């Protein structure tokens, strides 16, 4: 039996959910119970990672369509089905999710002391939600995961966050909800008005939509995703959420949740409404470039390390959006790769910030200085991660940034030039921060006594750094998996749609469905 014959996606997506419920059976009232909860959560997340690794192993790089597809009736009355699958665009993001989750659990080992069980349940539920979004091929399913994911994230910020956690959590929730509502309306329109009677995403992707109607539909989807990315000027929820969230929350938020926005643009908004996407491209590229420069400038003057990293995300995600809207192969492939790169580098940066915060209980840059003396190993990790983040060649960030920029240049030189200035600014804000935290004189008395990394922290950081080098030096395997899907995506978003007569007279969904399904299996 081939690997692809198992319902691996279902196992992978729902194992964390199952694990979360299983945690309810463990008492966490005493310390030993807490340890058992942590260990159990770690095991569930690791098995999930192994399943995703099996999927990676069984993934056929030369095939552009959906793989590991599972499909079953769910609510036929509304045309809702359980339809999941993945391609070269979602696969890297899935791996990123299953990879980061165990690391965050491991990091939280001593960080989280209150309501341990509840916390780990939230993390595991969150994982199911995120994975669900990446594999859903049905709008209804997608929306359930998309909204469901908000709740555990909201709780993680609101319960285990910093002093202004409630404000940040509510702000996060309202912003994203506001966006999702618009998307919901658009989805419902597609379902009822477009005359398909189905929520199946692949069916909708295969049906041209009248260019005259694409504009507002695209706007509704894109706005929802732009808030998530976040694209300038919808980014102001981000610094608050990041700063108040516990470290694990920030890692997941930056590492995966932000990619929901770029993924949504890529999977839904752009290919569903290609004509509108091309029309809006210039505006969105302008916002992306503003985000790149603006995020970097504001990051530069931050006094809180975590806030600096948060603003750097605004800048980095601007690159991803720019790549997608360049409508080029280099831009799209680089965009997907950069989503992963950002998850790794920024995830690692938040972990690192968490490590000094747990030692020193401050994140103000001015409280540090010279800690390279006390924590040499930590400093090495910090420097490598920061360099990966600012795109030093040989580390992960460079390949993505370079290909995105190359793609952007082939479409528009002014956008390319403006975005390239981000590399100078990134060097400034990151190195200046490193200088003031790690170097700049001898450490103060408190700082000179900080202990260096412990074994658990080593275990958390080493895999991330290995990935930074791997993706920087030999990205070929992953690029090879992204590229065919990016090619197919590009054909989809570049297709020209003439006016569609009447949407209701479009071919019957079932016929389209069966024909589209034929192409699914290799």
């Amino acid at each position: 039996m081939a690997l692809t014959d198992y319902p691996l996606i279902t196992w992978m997506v729902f194992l964390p959910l199952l694990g979360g419920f299983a945690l309810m059976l463990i008492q966490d009232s005493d310390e030993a119970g807490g340890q058992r909860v942590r260990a159990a959560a770690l095991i569930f997340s690791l098995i999930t990672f192994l399943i995703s690794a099996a999927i990676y192993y069984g993934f056929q790089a030369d095939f552009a369509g959906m793989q590991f597809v599972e499909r079953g009736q769910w609510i036929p009355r509304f045309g809702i089905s359980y339809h999941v699958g993945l391609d070269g665009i979602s696969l890297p993001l899935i791996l990123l999710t299953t990879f980061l989750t165990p690391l965050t659990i491991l990091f939280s080992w001593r960080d989280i002391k209150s309501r341990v069980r509840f916390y780990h349940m939230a993390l595991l539920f969150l994982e199911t939600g995120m994975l669900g979004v990446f594999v859903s091929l049905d709008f209804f399913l997608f929306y359930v995961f998309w909204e469901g994911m908000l709740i555990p994230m909201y709780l993680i910020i609101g319960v285990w966050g910093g002093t202004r956690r409630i404000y940040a959590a509510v702000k996060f929730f309202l912003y994203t909800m506001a966006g999702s509502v618009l998307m919901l309306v658009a989805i419902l329109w597609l379902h009822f008005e477009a005359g398909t009677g189905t929520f199946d995403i692949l069916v909708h992707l295969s049906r041209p939509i009248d260019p005259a109607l694409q504009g507002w539909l695209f706007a509704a989807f894109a706005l929802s995703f732009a808030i998530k990315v976040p694209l300038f000027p919808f980014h102001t929820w981000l610094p608050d959420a990041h700063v108040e969230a516990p470290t694990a929350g920030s890692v997941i938020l930056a590492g995966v949740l932000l990619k929901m926005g770029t993924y949504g643009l890529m999977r839904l908004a752009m290919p569903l409404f290609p004509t509108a996407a091309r029309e809006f491209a210039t505006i969105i590229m302008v916002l992306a470039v503003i985000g790149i420069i603006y995020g970097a400038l504001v990051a530069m003057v931050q006094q809180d390390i975590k806030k600096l990293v948060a603003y750097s995300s605004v800048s980095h995600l601007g690159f991803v959006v720019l790549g997608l809207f360049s409508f080029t192969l280099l831009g799209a492939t680089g965009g997907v790769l950069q989503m992963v790169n950002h998850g790794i580098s920024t995830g690692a940066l938040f972990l690192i910030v968490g490590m000094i915060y747990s030692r020193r209980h401050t994140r103000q840059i001015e409280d540090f200085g010279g800690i390279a003396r006390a924590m040499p190993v930590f400093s090495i990790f910090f420097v490598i991660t920061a360099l990966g983040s600012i795109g030093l060649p040989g580390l992960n960030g460079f390949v993505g940034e370079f290909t995105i920029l190359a793609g952007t240049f082939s479409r528009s030189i002014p956008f390319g030039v403006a975005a390239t200035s981000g590399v100078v600014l990134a060097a400034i804000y990151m190195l200046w921060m490193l200088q003031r935290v790690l170097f700049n004189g001898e450490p103060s008395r408190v700082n000179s006594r900080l202990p260096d990394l412990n074994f658990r922290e080593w275990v958390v950081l080493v895999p991330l750094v290995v990935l930074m080098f791997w993706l920087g030096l030999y990205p070929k395997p992953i690029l090879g998996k992204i590229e065919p899907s990016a090619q197919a995506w590009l054909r989809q978003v570049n297709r020209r749609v003439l006016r569609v007569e009447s949407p209701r007279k479009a071919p019957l969904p079932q016929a389209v469905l069966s024909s589209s399904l034929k192409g699914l299996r290799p």
Partner: protein
Amino acid sequence: MMNLIALILFLPLAGLFVNLLFGWKLGEKFAGWVASAAISGAFLAAMGGFVRLIGLPPEARLLRLVLFEWIPIGGFQVNAGFMLDPLSSVMTLVITGVGALIHFYSMGYMHGDRGVVRYFIYLNLFVFFMLTLVLGDNFLVLFVGWEGVGLCSYLLIGFWFGRESACEAGKKAFVFNRVGDFCFLIGLFLIIGVFGTLDFAEVLGRAPTTLVAGSGIATAICLLLFAGATGKSAQIPLYVWLPDAMEGPTPVSALIHAATMVTAGVYMVARAYVLFELSPVAMNVVAIVGAVTLLVAASIALVQTDIKRVLAYSTVSQLGYMVLALGVGAYSAAIFHLMTHAFFKALLFMGAGSVIHSLDGEQEMNKMGGLNAALPVTSMTCTIAALAIAGVFPLAGFFSKDAILYSAMTSEHGGVLFWLAGAAGALMTAIYIFRLIFKTFHGKCNLTMETQARLHESPRVMTLPLQALAGLSIAGGWVGIPLIPGADIFGGFLAPSLGGLAEGHHEALFEVIMMAISLAIALLGIYIAYKLFVRNVGGGAAYAERWPRLYRLVLNKYYVDEAYDYMIIQPVKRISTRLWKDFDDGFVDSSVGGVGGFVRLIGAAARQLQTGYVKSYAITMLVGALAVILYLTSGMK
């Protein structure tokens, strides 16, 4: 047979890993020997590569190594590919040869420093990246090395991070380099746009047919690439980081900020000379930038009193000569000067290091003097280097500088003004370098008695490299003797990489006159220095008093740093803070959410939840969501 390119490249990396794994435990001596042995091994491999190349017929002198496909996307492909041709062969020999000597020297200089293992790890990493830079067979691998050496420079300038000024200087170096890289990257993107590849062989091979000579795009590409070079090779307007880089340990200044890294820009332009030949405008800009830089920097070097800063400005000025040579199309002369400069400038820095070492860190020349007796080897070797840089026959600098001046006058891209700039620079060079020699090693000793009592010549591990470099500073120029047929071995060897020798218009008499003039200039400069700083001590000060404004202007380096700070750095900081405080936290936050209403809503909602019912609220939500799903599912029959 082992692949020589791989050997050259990976020996330094091997040294780095050994030290990373064992150096911390086994201590300074072990680390020093491992690092030095690794670079010496790389030097032997580079020699092997050189021998292999001359064994081949001139047009076939090219060894290749492709490790793997690095970035393959669709039709665009970049390989981790390397090549050894005459140009990169010369570069690898200089880098590993001078590099090995500096590694040995460092064992003495850094003795007892608590970060010495870290130091050698950085140093090996630097050599690895520098070799990557010169061996890469495409622009992107070159760029890997380019950024990598920048990183090592950052780390090594800020090596003594206990000093805030050192950290500041490291960051400044990296940021100014990145400004250059910004342009360089844009240049690369234009190349991709035109050629669809970054491979040297393809781009340079197709350039004459693909690009129209004198076209705007050719000029744009060249100027952008050159802007990258002005960052790395410290030319106007991006040179200001180099003098500050002297905060690093002195052997670092010798290796990175004199002999190797700063010449990367010169190497890159020489490598891409085919492109530059297509744009007369760009050539002219290159020559002008070189000429102006060499004059400005030399004039500043005349008045500095910190021994390392004099040498730093001297380096900027000498790099200006190389860039001038590139601009007038004398690529081989530029590389020739690059090599001889690596010898004598590394020697000068290491000599200065020897002085600083024996004076417990003193760098102020006004507090030195008369060290000749106590430091005979240092003094002797430094004087040789000074004669070489001043351009005295028959030392190395004479031949390379003469080659540049000759081309500046006679080349089709040259002109009398370029020659005049070079000649004026040569005069200043002779003056400032002998000012340094006289103030340091001769005259009255200005040290305190107790320092004088502790004066000592540096250990053998430091003086031997000085002597070796002194030998090279004397004889290094003899491979490029003009006039005599076949005596310009250097130019002949480089010809396959740099498009042949610009033979033909070498008129013997004219050439001899030119040589005599440049020798006369050098001797005049030395005489002036002698008169101002030995015969009539305080002669220099008298001139400073006569023109106080001019003196202060030059002493303060024409206030360029201050101008950058006032015009760029401070405004950017102010604007960024405004964006954050007023725009981000104020305007966007409130207007995106509907002029503050949204914020109030959040506040109100948050207050409701402050009371600790978060958990129950969450459960309510979960239940609600489940209820909706159940309702919809109920239709499932």
